[in-house]
Every structure is written in structure tokens, then in C-alpha cells.
């Protein structure tokens, strides 16, 4: 009797937690389903090739915003990746006493800082002094968001490189810097690429830090020192507008954005499942 009651509790809790897991994933299906339903109807070739039309004219696209997002993400990657990977290498390899702990802690803390706050910082550093919203300021803000993610994943992946490899190389008389750059980093490459892709996916969808750095633009990009359009910004502006045609385009934009993010996330998944799942 007692045993059967315990077994019932076991089954009940399994079911309850399974239900919880289902409910956690459910919004993904709801959001994605609705996005497909609304977005596919609004997608057409013009969406990818045309500039936004003025208010009242039906049609037009978000080509400038798609290009703008690509530019902003590339800028962020140029700034954030080298620093992030080197920082990760430092955290994994350094024998310093205090700095690694501090840096690791700050990276985690920075990862939790709201992106809107990073936007304010980027505004103060990269917009106010030049009295102009710019693509560079937007890229700077996104790079700060990228940095902690890249640092922490590179650190983790560099740590996974077996120390026997390091020791073998050092025993051959190869200087340490060469061991790190030519043996350790390349071995961890697949994993680091995953981390980079996760960071890119996260950053591509960020809106808040771009509101007052990249600012948005209804035309093609006009140089890195000028305001630039971004897909998330455009979706936001269209979503809160009162026009039906703009709502339709916001859905299409969201579909494209989420498509980009999911493709990158899936690709990251594929890269990892190749070599490093065994080690993890």
C-alpha cells in the first residue's frame, strides 16, 4: 500500500514536470506558428529588394534593414570577437592570481546587464561626443553584448583541450605562445565557432541598444558614421505604428529575423555535434 502510493507520487511528479517542460516549449510553437501564418503571406521578392515606402503607399520592403543588420553584426564581430577570444584564452590559460577570477566574474555580470543600459553607455561614449547617431555606435553597443558570451565559451572550449597535447608540444621545445596559438586554439576551433555563432544570433535580434545608437534609417546605408537601419528596429517601429500594411511587414520582418537567428543556432548545433560532444 505504502509502496504503491509512493509509485503514484513518482508517476504524478514525472507527469507534472513533463507538463512543465511542455509548457516551456509551447510558446515557441505558438509564436513560430503565428509568425509563419502571418509572415509568409506578407513575404515577397519586393520585401528583400525594396526600400520602405512612405506612409500610405502599399508595398515596399525592408532590404535596407536586412543589409543594415548584417553591417551592424559584422561591425560588432570585428570589435568583439578578437577581444573575446583572446580574453577567453587568458581566462583558461593564465596563472595570474586575481585577475582571472575578477575578469570571469565581470564577464558573467556583464552578460546579465540589461541591453538597454549598454545602449545608454554606448550613447554616452560613441554618440554624444560626435553629436550623431551612427552605425559605428550601434556596432560598438552590440560588441559589448557579444563580448561576455564569446569570452566564456572560448574559455570553456580552450579548457577542454587535453593538457597532454600542451605537454607534448612543450616537451618538444615549442615556445608557449606558439603552443597556444598554433595548437590549443586550432584544437578548440569548432567549439569557439559555436560560441561565436551563438553570440551572433543573440546580437542580431537586439533592439534596445540600437534605439539610440544606430537609430534606424529609411534609406540605404550612407556610411558608417551615419544612422543605419536594422531589422529589429524596423519591426519595432512598424509594430507600434497604426497602419495595417506596416503590421503586415512587421510580421514578415519578424519571420526573416527569426529565420536568421534559428539558422545560425541550428548551424552552431551542427558544428558542435561533430567533434566536441564526446568531450563534453
Amino acid at each position, binding site marked *: 500500500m505504502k509502496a504503491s502510493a509512493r509509485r503514484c507520487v513518482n508517476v504524478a511528479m514525472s507527469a507534472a514536470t513533463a507538463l512543465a517542460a511542455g509548457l516551456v516549449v509551447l510558446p*515557441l510553437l505558438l509564436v513560430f506558428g503565428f509568425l509563419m501564418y502571418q509572415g509568409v503571406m506578407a513575404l515577397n521578392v519586393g520585401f528583400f529588394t525594396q526600400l520602405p515606402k512612405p506612409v500610405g503607399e502599399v508595398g515596399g520592403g525592408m532590404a535596407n534593414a536586412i543589409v543594415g543588420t548584417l553591417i551592424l553584426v559584422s561591425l560588432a564581430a570585428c570589435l568583439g570577437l578578437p577581444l573575446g577570444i583572446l580574453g577567453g584564452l587568458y581566462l583558461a590559460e593564465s596563472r595570474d592570481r586575481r585577475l582571472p577570477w575578477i575578469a570571469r566574474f565581470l564577464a558573467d555580470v556583464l552578460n546579465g546587464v540589461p541591453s538597454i543600459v549598454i545602449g545608454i553607455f554606448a550613447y554616452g*561614449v560613441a554618440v554624444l561626443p560626435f553629436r550623431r547617431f551612427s552605425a559605428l555606435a550601434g556596432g560598438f553597443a552590440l560588441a559589448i553584448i557579444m563580448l561576455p558570451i564569446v569570452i566564456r565559451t572560448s574559455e570553456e572550449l580552450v579548457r577542454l583541450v587535453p593538457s597532454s597535447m600542451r605537454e607534448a608540444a612543450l616537451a618538444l621545445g615549442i615556445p608557449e605562445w*606558439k603552443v597556444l596559438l598554433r595548437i590549443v586554439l586550432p584544437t578548440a576551433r569548432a567549439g569557439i565557432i559555436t560560441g561565436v555563432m551563438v553570440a551572433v544570433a543573440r546580437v542580431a535580434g537586439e533592439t534596445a541598444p540600437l534605439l539610440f545608437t544606430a537609430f534606424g534609417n529609411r534609406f540605404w546605408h550612407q556610411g558608417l558614421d551615419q544612422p543605419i537601419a536594422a531589422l529589429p528596429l524596423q519591426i519595432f517601429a512598424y509594430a507600434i505604428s497604426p497602419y495595417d500594411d506596416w503590421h503586415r511587414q512587421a510580421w514578415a520582418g519578424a519571420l526573416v529575423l527569426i529565420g536568421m537567428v534559428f539558422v545560425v543556432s541550428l548551424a552552431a548545433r551542427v558544428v558542435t555535434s561533430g567533434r566536441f560532444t564526446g568531450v563534453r
Partner: protein
Amino acid sequence: MPNALARGTGGPVTGLSLSSADVRARAAPANLGDRILRVVLRGAALSLVLLVVGMVAEMLLRATPAIRAFGFSFLYTSTWDPVAERFGAVPFVFGTLVSSLLALLIAVPLGLGAAIYLAELAPRWMRSPMAFLVELVAAVPSVVYGLWGIFVLAPLLRTWVQPALGKTLGFLPLFQGPPYGVGMLAAGIILAIMVVPFITAVGREVLLAVPNTQREAALALGATRWETTRIAVLRYGRSGLIGAILLGLGRALGETMAVTMVIGNRPEVAMSLFAPGYTMASVIANEFSEATSDLYLAALVEIGLLLLVVTVIVNGFARLLVWSVGGAVKAARE
């Protein structure tokens, strides 16, 4: 153990067991390349430290006019009048706290339940695909959730949920007032959806870090799967799970776009969850680029600074808790 010192978990180094790492750390690097690389790597780490310190300093500097003008009254007055240049942060702090707590109320049971399921109770073949789906829930951009919130969730709440809640629980002040759809309730639900995958992912990692000997001991005593989880796993990982919840809270406090799109953006302190509100992050998002006077801008930066300080405290605390589980395990494994 080549870098036990760097990890800070390797235990004390006694005089007898000087590791090779220790010796190398003291000897000057022999090679120019080594020296350069060491400087470059250290520079990368230092730049991160400088970035965080610079962020706090910069915002403090820009918020100074508001801090001077209002002092602590900024924190307990609720007028927000850009024209008369009188600013108090109460409605925004209230909105941020209420929407985040509402989100946690929904997200904690779901997130922890899902974490337990994914780490302990689910069939093995399901675990990693499900974990990936949870990752995708977290990867959906905020603005997309906001879009969905405006056009799907808010109408749903307006036509079905809020009238029903008003009819059954309307005697509570929480569920009174006209059903707008957008408002505190919608913000809480959207936030819950966005925060729950973080709680699940971190919680799952904490549970996976619990050593197997814990489970084996409980199972050997004849415990069922759930009893094992409850007695041996959850208790061991408790502090880490609290850390996971705090990480979720940190996300909820700072989440901007989706909330801005569904909360209604009205700086009021209202009892009802149906009423529109405003959060710290959304007021910055909405008004920052339109702030005309220096004092107005400074007031907004001060709100950002408050948000920064609160999230840094919450996240720092959360990380220490999560590390306390993961770190101990890592040390045991090495």
C-alpha cells in the same frame, strides 16, 4: 593540474607540493613571443574590467545633474513631468518590480519543473532535443515576442482571459478595472515566457552538476526516481537552483522591448493587474532619444544606473550561488 591557481578551486598550495605551474609563474618568461602574448592576453582581460568600470563611471557622471537636483527624493516621489522638469522614479520601479515578480510567479514552477524533467526524469533520447528547443525559446528576439504580444496575446487577454478573471476573482483589487489587454498582466506573461528558458537551462546545468553518487546512494536505499530527485538531487543543488531563479529575475528586470510593447506605457501606480504600467527599461527606451533638456536626460540615465546596480547585484549573487554548486563539483572531478 596545470592551472589550478587560475581556477581558484584547486585548494591551498602547501610548501611541499609546489606545482610546476607555480614555478613557471615565478620564473620570468624566457621568450619574447611568450612575453608579448602574455601582455596581449592580459590586456584583453583588463579591457573587460575597464569596460565595466568605465560603464559605471560614465553613467554616474551623466546622471550627476539629476542626482544633484533630486537626491533621494528621486526614489520616493512619483511625479514624472518632463515639462516642469520634476522627476521621480516610483512608477517605473513599481512597474519593473511588479512585472518581474509576476513573471517569476509563473516562470519559477514551470522552469524548475522543466529543468528537473530534462535533467532527471525524461527518457534519455528526449533530453538533448528538448534542451535544444528550450535554447531556441531563449533565442527568439525580444522584439518578436513583443510583436506577438501586441497582436496575439493582448487581444486574447482582452476578449477572454480578463473578462473571465474579472467575473470570478473580480472581488480582489488585483483583477478589477476595464480589460485593455495591454497592461501589467500581459507584461508579466510575456516576461515569464522570456525568462523561463533561462531558469530551465541554468537549473538543468546545476542538476547535471550534482554528482551521480548522490543519486546512486538514494536509489540503493530503494527510493523511487522522484524521491531520489527530491532527497538527493534537489537538496544538493538547492543554492544553484536559487541562483538560476535569480538569473531569471535579472533578465526580467532589464528586459525592454517586449515589455515596452505590451505594458501600456502609463506612469501610474495601480493596484489592478489589468491596468497599464511602465517599467524602468521601457521609459528609457521610449523617451531617451527625445529627452530635450540635460536634466531630463540625466534623470533617464539615473534610472538606467539604478537598473544597472540592481541587476549587477542580483546577477553577481546568482553567479556565486551557481558557482557554489558547479565549482565544488568541478574541483571534485579534477
